[in-house]
């Protein structure tokens, strides 16, 4: 299978960082997931061959880390922190609202493949709780209204991109 040149560049650069090949597995999986959207069987097979691992070993690592997934996700992966600081400042309410607004449960993806929802442990934004991470972006000091705003913006952007 083919990856982008950017991926290949990163991959070959990383290989030089470690004494053994298998050490680059975790960052490589992250890059591959960013590029493909999720870790398909094809990706797993390809990386296993490249790194002289078994597919089973690659799967073991993927199943260990919650940020790695073998199922397709929406374009915006909404990760709501419900750890203690956020929870005290209303994260549960926000999470409930997200479920209602998107109409999916945790680890669910909306039918238009735009959003998927996840409940996560502390994302390190306690000072600005409650916080939500959408893909790699943080959104802080949220309320239900702000959340709605965020969804609208994402939806607009997503639909525009799709129509391009």
């Amino acid at each position, binding site marked *: 299978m083919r990856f982008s040149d950017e991926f290949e560049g990163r991959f070959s650069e990383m290989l030089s960082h470690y004494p053994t090949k298998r050490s680059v597995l975790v960052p490589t999986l992250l890059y591959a997931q960013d590029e493909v959207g999720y870790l398909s069987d094809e990706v797993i097979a390809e990386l296993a061959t490249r790194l*002289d691992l078994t597919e*089973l070993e690659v799967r*073991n690592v993927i199943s260990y880390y919650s940020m790695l997934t073998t199922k397709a996700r929406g374009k915006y992966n909404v990760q709501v922190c419900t750890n203690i600081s956020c929870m005290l400042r209303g994260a549960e309410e926000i999470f409930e609202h997200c479920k209602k607004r998107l109409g999916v449960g945790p680890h669910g993806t909306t039918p238009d493949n735009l959003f998927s929802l996840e409940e996560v442990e502390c994302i390190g934004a306690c000072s600005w709780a409650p916080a939500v991470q959408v893909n790699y972006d943080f959104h802080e000091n949220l309320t239900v209204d702000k959340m709605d705003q965020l969804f609208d913006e994402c939806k607009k952007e997503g639909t525009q991109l799709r129509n391009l």
Partner: protein
Amino acid sequence: MADVNITVDGKKVTAPAGTLLIEACKSVGIEVPSFCYYPNLSLQGACRMCLVKVEKMPKLQTACTTVISEGMIAITNNDEVRQARKSMVELLLGNHPLDCPVCDAGGECELQDMTFSYGAAESKFMEAKNHKDEQQWSPVVYFDRPRCILCYRCVRVCGEAMDVWALGVQNRGVVSVIAPNKEDHLECEECGMCIDICPVGALTSGAYRYKTRPWEMNHVGTICTHCGDGCKTTLGVRRSDSGMQIVRGDNRDKSGINGDFLCIKGRYAFDFADDPQRVTTPLIRRDGQLAPSTWEEAFELIGKRFAEIRDKEGGRAIGVVGSNRTTNEENYLLSKFARVVLKTNSIDHRRTADFPAFAAAMVGKPHAAATMRDVFNAPAILVIGNNPTEQHPLLAWQIRNNVRLHRARLYVINSRPIKLRRQATSFTEIPQGTEGQAAAFLGGDDSAAEALGSGSREMWVGLRDKLRGEGKLIIIFDSAIRGKDISALVKFGSAVSGAKFVCLGDYSNSRGAADMGLYPDFLPGYRPIADASTFKDEWGDMPTAPGLNVSQMAEAAAAGTLKGFYVVGSNPVGGLGLDPFAFSNTFVVVQDMFLTETAQMADVVLPSANAYEKAGTFTNTCGDIQLVKKAGEVSDVKSDFEMIVRIADATGFEVRKLVPFGGRGTSADMGQSRGAQSGEADRHVVWLEAHGLEPKMSPFDPMAILDEIQRLVPGYDVSRMNLLAGNDQHTTTVGTGQGGVQDAKLIAPANDNLFTSGTLGRYSRALNSVIENRNPEPAEEVAAD
């Protein structure tokens, strides 16, 4: 390494630096319980069962990962430690089902033992247990997830020790689960090591599942009857309608040369014994059909016909074919029987390696034959040809783990990218069929390098120089190297200090068959027919001209000069491609378990016992001799030994001259002829031997002829007591220097893989079920650094 002094529970312990605390404790008899720790596997520290108090350390330490240091003071049995163990067991039992009464591991479960020794009677956990259904991962491996305690032993033994990497751990924390490599099933070597090493009943064997319980069986440690490596397998036997049924095989007795290892054949492929197609009555051909008969009638007929042919046409009109799977005693007896009773030297077997040439090349180097144990300890190993992973699984295990644990250097020269290349320091690919040239080149014939394909001459010279520089090199080769190539290789080895050799034969007693002289031109111990003086004194009169080999026998039968053909436990028609119609005017007697292609054309078929149903000795391909004990029993079959003696008797020969039994004044068969059935009987045998009281009262007692073998066959004068105690003894390879004149074309390697095993494999349900379940294309080879 320097020694370190520590104190454990007030006892002074001295151990080499680098020793783990748990091992140091064990060395003075202090048991530290653990699940995940297993000697020779990587450390895991997962089960937390081995927590001990180490002074000046703030918390309890895991003894399995703590390396001892000077002055360390450890306490393994105070209240704190006991409480910790109790809590660990309680946690492990949190979701472990209490189905011990149905669990296969019940009675030999480490968790049971630990709960009994260290656990609490009550649990604080009230939650309902989380049940998951049992999964079948392969025809022989079942996984019961709730029973798993996540010690990861199976994962490590499969990956590190077997180099298969078929098991892994998925998810993390409380939801961790052992997973097979192909989503819901395994694609692996099916060795069953994971089942053996599992401390609980999470991984269970498909063959033994729910059949019986460990204390209901007798456990007999005997030698596997499949490949030539000679693993010790412990067979669990139970009384059945027709005798003793073998219910399971495992390696609970780790004293064998195989230590922890057994492959699929040693573990599961004992079931050919109960195959419904097994012959259990003597068959005599009447009106063109094989019809059931009685033993008396069969022996009488065979004795009469053989004596007739011998007296009328001379011994040359009778041919004998021996087996690679009968014991040394039977092979020796057959060799003697053919020459002394039938007066023929036409005796042969399926040759799977050029042992005579090997013995000849080893003249003057009696200690240069490596043992199977040596292979695990040698600093350097050279493997030319063969694929040990498939054909000699134990040898591959020894090599692999030697490389892993002792950093041995492995050199592989092969025409295929065999799996052992992954452990190799150097892998050199050569064109198919040029193993002999490689040997010749190493032996100094530089011109042979041209045949060796793409590798440059400098590369080959460099490799040879490097190998010459290796001390204590073990050189391993198979039947691809024959005749003068063997002497070239041995010559090369002589230049290396302390070099040893292994010549690989394919079946469980191929080496024994060769050593016992199943050759038309060699007597036992590779002594040429012409030089028979020692044997003449003992055996009496015998023919002096070399006899016919197997293919010559077939030609003679076709030409009408071979009138009698006696086949013991072999299938020359199916295996060597002899023309069955050539024998249509020959009186053919076959001793076998099944109606093989050869048995189908026989005039008399005698049902024989297999190696699991009789006693004797086997010599493995390295020359390690080991005791074979009787485990199973099927009524109405006889051992080949007894049948040979009875046929000799029926020809009118005085049996005492064939088997020197009795003669010590005792007058009872003390059980040896029936074989040892339990550990107690084994010890009794050793005791009798130690006091010079071995009775050998019956002419069917193989031990009676073992005396003669030990006396007459060079290299077999090993310690009888050690042999009887179940230890492996190394025979020294002593040739006469005249063995290299064999026709190399007669060697027919078995080419069995992990899941086939000649005739036995054809009738093994376990092996066949695994073969049926495999993908047509070979399993994808895996690698790990």
